[in-house]
């Protein structure tokens, strides 16, 4: 996922998602300074604890939210409309947050009242049982799980859910499981079941097996350690075999969660209402509640607008929230400085890590790349996104929200965040490249326009002949995504889909993935790294895999430096004074709607 700070997927690369991370600050109240440090420490300790839950950990109902009372309506302000309601087409965080209320999948993340996350069985009795060295995974459905129309959810529905993702009309959602099942790269997986299941064909039992009405068995060619994470993605939420209307399902999906879409209420660009689903049984669900009678969602409310509305806490806005709108950068100071507003805020990490790419096809001398890295003022990059609360300076490619993260700073950037021009000057001199031309591309969005001045200034002082290239933001990733782009350095951001670096290191640093529009923007290719990626991808020991991924990321950063990490993205969100149970959920990069209630 690249376009950090936008929820809308620019899909070639964007991944957004439901995925990422572990908990950090699930407490209320936007943190800053010392509070940030505390949140960070909590996050680090909890990160190590994320586990794949057993049947006991997956059994509902969810523990009650303190002081929660049932009833009432919550207004929800959203900037963007939901482009897709068919779960197989969901890959952006806005829809991902919505999906926690209306869709269920085989696994999910349970966030308990202490802020601890566990991967649990959602429709399944547990997070999955693997055999055959991680090549076979078996899931059993819970008893009593139903769709909104009362129809029981069976293994045939689960099989259909995965088989339909092979159809050509499904193009926006995740493809991890399909590619693992087909053992294929890119779009090749579609050949396993061309057109999907609609012609009466099914995946063979040797790939996806449903021996009885409650059992589903995945057979992979290679070991898959991250399946419980992947299955928790919104994109793999259950779709009924009877009732799948193909392309039209995108406008009228069938709910399986605690809420359903009020019939006829969804108006693209205007709004929608969610009402209680009477066929959702809380005893089957460890992750969700059904306190609120109704959610009234309004689209088209910009970040500054929702910030003003929620800061005012006027009569209309006391029972309002936004699932995904953040506090706009210009208002961060006011939120931090006003106790009454600050106590109605939540903060947390987003899965994105910002970086400045070095085009490895053009900048072949590592000393030059090091000189650039030392010169770049990463504090200026962060400041452009708003402080306090817009993010945290980064020392590695792996976000603090991922298992295995450690604090490192191999180039001393955290100690000298405004850049070390003298060191850069010295390195450039040693490389014999003083005065070399350096093409610096960035988007014409407000933030890059701010920080590009400071970056170019430091680079010039270090001895580079900097040529700035201001690119249109709507085509930016298309342009820098070209393998033969004519730029030397350019920023991007990438985020994980779940709390493992499997969704970061391979897409961004695997040299075999270099092609137009692929997210390996620095065109980095190191055969030794590629080989290591293959090895770690097949580890089934999650702890070992997390350790090895981080070690590989650190090695890439230290030895090859294809990118300079700049900052870890964070967000602050507001809510009205009469909305309770508002906590940040780092997994969905937003507040958690399943715990909300209206205060009496």
């Amino acid at each position, binding site marked *: *996922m690249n376009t950090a700070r936008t929820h809308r*997927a*620019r*899909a*070639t*690369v*964007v*991944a957004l998602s439901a995925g990422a991370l572990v908990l950090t600050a699930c407490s209320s109240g936007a943190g800053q300074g010392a509070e940030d440090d505390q949140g960070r420490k909590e996050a680090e300790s909890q990160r190590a604890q994320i586990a794949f839950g057993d049947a006991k950990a997956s059994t509902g109902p969810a523990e009650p939210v303190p002081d929660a009372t049932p009833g009432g309506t919550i207004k929800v*302000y959203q900037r963007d*409309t*939901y*482009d*897709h309601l068919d779960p197989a087409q969901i*890959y952006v965080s806005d829809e991902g947050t919505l999906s926690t209320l209306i869709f269920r999948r085989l696994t999910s993340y349970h966030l308990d009242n202490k802020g601890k996350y566990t991967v649990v069985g959602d429709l399944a009795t547990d997070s999955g049982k693997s055999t055959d060295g991680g090549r076979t995974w078996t899931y059993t459905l819970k008893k009593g799980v139903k769709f909104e129309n009362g129809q029981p959810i069976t293994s045939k529905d689960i099989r259909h859910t995965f088989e339909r993702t092979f159809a*050509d*009309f499904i*193009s*926006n*959602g*995740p*493809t991890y499981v399909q*590619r693992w099942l087909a053992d294929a790269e*890119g*779009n*090749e997986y*579609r050949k396993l079941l061309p057109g999907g299941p609609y012609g009466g064909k099914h995946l063979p039992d040797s790939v996806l097996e449903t021996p009885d009405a409650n059992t589903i068995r995945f057979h992979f060619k290679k070991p898959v350690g991250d399946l419980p994470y992947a299955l928790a993605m919104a994109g793999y939420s259950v779709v009924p075999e009877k009732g799948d209307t*193909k*392309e*039209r399902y*995108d*406008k009228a999906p069938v709910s399986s969660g605690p809420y359903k879409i009020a019939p006829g209420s969804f*108006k*693209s*660009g*205007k709004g929608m209402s969610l009402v209680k689903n009477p066929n959702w049984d809380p005893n089957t669900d460890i992750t969700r509640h059904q306190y609120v009678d109704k959610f009234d969602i*309004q*689209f*088209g*409310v*910009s970040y*500054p*607008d929702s910030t*003003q*509305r929620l*800061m*005012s806490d*006027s*009569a*209309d*806005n006391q029972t309002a929230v936004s699932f995904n709108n953040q506090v706009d950068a210009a208002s961060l100071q006011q939120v931090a400085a006003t106790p009454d507003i600050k106590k109605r805020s939540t903060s947390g990490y987003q899965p994105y890590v910002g970086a400045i790419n070095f085009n490895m096809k053009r900048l072949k001398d590592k000393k030059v790349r090091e000189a650039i890295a030392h010169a770049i003022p990463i504090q200026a990059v962060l400041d452009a996104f708003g402080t306090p609360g817009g993010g945290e300076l980064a020392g590695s490619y792996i976000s603090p929200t991922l298992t295995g993260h450690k604090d490192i700073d191999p180039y001393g950037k955290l100690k000298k965040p405004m850049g070390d021009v003298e060191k850069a000057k010295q390195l450039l001199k040693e490389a014999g490249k003083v005065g070399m031309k350096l093409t610096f591309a960035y988007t014409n969005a407000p933030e890059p326009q701010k920080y590009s001045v400071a970056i170019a200034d430091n680079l010039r002082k270090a001895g580079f002949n900097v040529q700035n290239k201001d690119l249109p933001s*709507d*085509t930016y990733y*298309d342009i820098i995504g070209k393998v033969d782009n004519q730029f030397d350095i350019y920023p991007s951001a990438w985020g994980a*889909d779940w709390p493992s670096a499997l969704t970061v290191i391979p*897409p961004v640093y695997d040299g075999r993935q270099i*092609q*137009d*529009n*692929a*997210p390996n923007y620095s065109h980095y290719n190191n055969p030794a790294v590629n080989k290591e990626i293959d090895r770690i991808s097949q580890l089934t020991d999650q702890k070992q895999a997390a350790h090895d991924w981080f070690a590989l990321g650190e090695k890439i950063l230290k030895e090859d430096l294809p990118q300079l990490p700049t900052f870890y993205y964070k967000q602050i969100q507001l809510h009205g004074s009469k909305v309770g149970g508002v906590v940040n959920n780092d997994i969905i990069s937003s507040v958690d709607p399943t715990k909300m209630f209206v205060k009496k």
Partner: protein
Amino acid sequence: MLRFLFRRSLGAIVILLIISAFTFFLFFAAPRDPALLACGKNCTPDAIAVIHKNLGLDKPVPVQYWLFMSGIVTGRDFAVGHCPAPCFGYSFANNDPVWDTILDRFPTTVSLTIGAAAVFLTAGVGTGMIAAWKQGRLIDKIFSSSSLVLSSMQIYFVGPIVLALLVYNLGWFGQPKYVPITDDPVGWFLGLIIPWFVLSLIFTAQYTRMARSSMIEQLQEDHVRTARAKGMTSRTVFFRYAWRGSLIPIVTIFGIDLGSLFGGAMITEYTFALPGLGTLAVKSVQNTDLPMVMGVMLFAATFIILLNIVVDACYAFIDPRVRLS
């Protein structure tokens, strides 16, 4: 009159065809591929080819244009079902039927436009006439200077200030919103009162200035002087002789303004988060959503052209010297 309407209608169709062709071909000149918006994380050339086929972008551009235009007249068949005429297709971004979306958004825009137009037309023309009537006096100076200040204001500046003051700080009004008049007439009125006020504020100032100068100009016309020379009262001269003539430029500009607003008051809709055609147009352009862009463009252009025809027809009623032939 009928000949006039027939001739102008034919002209309107030609203009709409030119606009449609211009918009359609200009879209493909842009360096952005809409398929990329619908391509997942691991987007490959193969995946893009599949999406091109799904969206119909695999056909030559002239063929796509022909299919689009013929769909408006005859309807078209898509994977999601038959799209009856007038069929503008389905959104690239979210598969919404374009025509239904436009019809869904239009009442918001109409409500905003008609309410604001009623205010700025009566208040603007009224104050402009008074200023002309009392030319050179204190009231004229107050109206003239106020209109100068207000016409320099911008909606994106005034709107948030009015919101902060009247809604967030004083709490005199609720959050602006659109409620269909058929559901709740009072809610419709109260929800739009602030957007009407803000939108009409800027327009009122412009119409004040225009009405004043137009009336002053009329008051210097020969037929007005003749009427005065014949001993008619100032009131009679003002309302019977000068007023009608002064309306010509106002009606012309009002027709254009109304047509443009029916196509979407983008900034006002965005400022108050009103789901009208303006916000739809902006979002469609941002999303490289060709069918939606085409639909909104043609819909807005139709209104501007229609209202121009109406304005031309009105000239004959306002000024007998004008002959439609």
